[in-house]
């Protein structure tokens, strides 16, 4: 089943290789509130019909404001959350709805890095225990070799092997994040989903961690899904960008295309918010009106129409699907900015 949206999700991939991980019409809904009577609960559409493809070797940046569902999507991709609807394929194999046993090989190949490095490390366990856990669970190495592997991992993330005997609270934020990365690397994964891995860190440390990500990608041939709200960081690390708004992807394309000429009004507004260091490059800042609508009752038609300065009646009734444009990117908008400006120019 490769419909238009799925094809659009694959747009502008660097390689023609088959996608490593592919989400097809993936949705994640939460029920909340008291459900004493059937049907009386409320439903949150955290991720709503997302199609996405991640190709080997690329870094897919996932951006959007807080509450847009990017973390939820990340955790669906790693199967930490159950998927409500849709398919998830890893190397062409469906893994979205399989049980824990069939999931185990997938767990080895896809790992996650968390935002808060202090929350993601058990304070009761030494670094050695934290790093050895994945190795023991999967029995990847014989016991005798675990020690060597731990030292190797510490070396990989730039920490002295002598720190293995320490507890997480003895480290700085950046060092803890390095431990988190080492744990993710322990099982030699192919894909790493990094959920805001640097946003809890100091700016100076952020740069070091971002560089570490880049080094590791080259060294170990990793593929990343890099979730962040810091657009500057995403631009630096990503080869491709997916912009999310209220649970859906609104624009998807190579970093240069999307950052160079955003096609979706939301992307445009988002990018105009990046502070520019040089005054002459400062373009006009687009300030969106209103707040993010509630994902409990998303607006009909285009999700963005309540805040879009260009919305018309069609946007209010008909929901735009993700469709490819001429320049290779995909966008979910009836009136993409690039086309508007082109027609305005002629």
């Amino acid at each position, binding site marked *: 089943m490769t419909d238009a949206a799925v094809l659009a999700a694959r747009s502008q991939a660097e390689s023609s290789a088959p996608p490593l991980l592919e989400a097809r019409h993936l949705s994640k809904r939460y029920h909340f509130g008291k459900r004493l009577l059937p049907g009386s609960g409320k439903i949150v559409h955290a991720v709503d019909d997302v199609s996405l493809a991640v190709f080997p070797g690329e870094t897919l940046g996932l951006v959007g404001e807080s509450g847009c569902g990017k973390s939820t999507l990340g955790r669906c991709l790693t199967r930490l959350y159950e998927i409500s609807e849709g398919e998830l394929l890893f190397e062409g194999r469906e893994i979205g709805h399989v049980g824990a046993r069939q999931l185990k090989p997938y767990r*080895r190949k896809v790992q996650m890095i968390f935002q808060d490095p202090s929350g993601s490390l058990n304070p009761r366990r030494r670094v050695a225990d934290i790093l050895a856990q994945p190795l023991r669970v*999967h029995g990847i190495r014989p016991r005798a070799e675990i020690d060597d592997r731990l030292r190797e991992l510490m070396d990989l993330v730039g920490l*002295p092997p002598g720190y293995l005997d320490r507890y997480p609270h003895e480290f700085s934020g950046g060092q803890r994040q390095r431990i988190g990365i080492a744990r993710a690397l322990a099982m030699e994964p192919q894909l790493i989903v990094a959920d805001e891995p640097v946003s809890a860190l100091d700016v100076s440390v952020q740069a070091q961690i971002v560089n570490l990500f880049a080094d590791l990608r080259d060294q170990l041939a990793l593929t990343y899904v890099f979730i962040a709200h810091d657009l500057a960081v995403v631009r630096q690390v990503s080869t491709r960008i997916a912009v999310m708004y209220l649970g859906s992807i609104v624009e998807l394309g190579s970093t240069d295309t999307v950052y160079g000429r955003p096609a979706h009004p939301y992307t445009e507004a988002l990018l105009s918010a990046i502070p520019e260091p040089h005054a002459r490059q400062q373009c006009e800042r687009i300030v969106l009106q209103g707040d993010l609508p509630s994902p409990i009752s998303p607006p009909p038609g285009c999700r963005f129409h309540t805040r879009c300065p260009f919305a018309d009646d069609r946007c209010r009734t008909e929901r735009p699907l993700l469709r490819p444009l001429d320049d290779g990117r995909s966008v979910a908008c009836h009136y993409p900015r690039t086309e508007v400006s082109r027609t305005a120019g002629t």
Partner: protein
Amino acid sequence: MTMPPINDPATDLVFADGALVASSEIREVRSRSYMGLVWRRFRRHRLGLVGAVLVALIMLTAIFASVLAPYDPYQRDGKSIYLPPQRLHVFADDGFHPLPFTNPVKLDLDPDTYELVPTIDTATRCSVSVFGKGWTYSFFGIRTDRHLFAPAPDCGWHVLGTDRDGRDMLSRLLIGSRLTLLMAAVVVTISVIIGTLVGMVSGYFRGAVDHWLQRIVEFILALPELPFYFALVVIIPRNADPFRVFLALVGILSVMKWAQLAREVRGKTLSVASLDYIVAAEAVGTRTPRIVLRHILPNVLSHVVVATTLMIPSIVLLESFLSFLGIGVRAPLVSWGLLLNAASDLQNLGSYPWVLTPVVAILITVMGFNMLGDGLRDAIDPYQN
């Protein structure tokens, strides 16, 4: 210098995320384990330390109660009914006596009021021998009759007086501590195990399991305690074996007491389970029992330990309260509450106030455990600065 060098801002600079900063100075810093950190913080808590010492002393006293008790706590003596506490002396006309002695007390009938008036016979001395022979008891399977203080026969050495049957109050108090503390220990152990298990299962699996377990917890918490105890104890026949009654009481209290802890543990589990390191363990593919036992249990246990130390005094109080009312431990067993039952007669209380000494024992025990619990509560989460 209270802070260890690890947390010193100066060393932290060397630690900063420059990575691979090899410094021999840093290497030598000893990593403190969880228990080490807890101990470091507990040490600074004065009241907690006092509580720990008190609790240790109380435990030792209960364990060695029969060694310490000078008299057979069950031995009635018609000649020494309601003897007042005798003062201990170490100095006499002929100098210092390392072993405290007492002067025997004689009860004489006042010809006018018909009251028994104690007169102290200062001429004779009742002495004790250290590790001398006394009443026979069995201690960890060894039958012996040696006691720390063995009073001479037929010469009273009743430091805390005697009760209405002429039994030595000190000995009864010492032996009574066993049953009171045993009951607290057993009730707390059972309810902590049930409460922790139910709480963790409820908090980790959530959903329908959580829903129904919480309804059970609510049901138990909604039972009106006192009438419930009355009703249940009334069911037990009057002539039942006292030890059986004791066991029934332990069972009832255990059933009633786990619910509150289950609720607290559930809350703690909910918050721990949402932490990223649990998610990380799941991402790695760790099996559920391992996650619960290796990651959630240790982090919930700190709360359980504190709850346990604070639950013991509440059971001690409850036991004395129920036994005082006559629905708890039954004679011939001895417990602090049962000893207080003798003080329920106001007339006796006025004439023989020393029968209230178990109150002091209960007070010290409750305070000791509470102080220890307070100290533990402050020390047990060393990662929250």
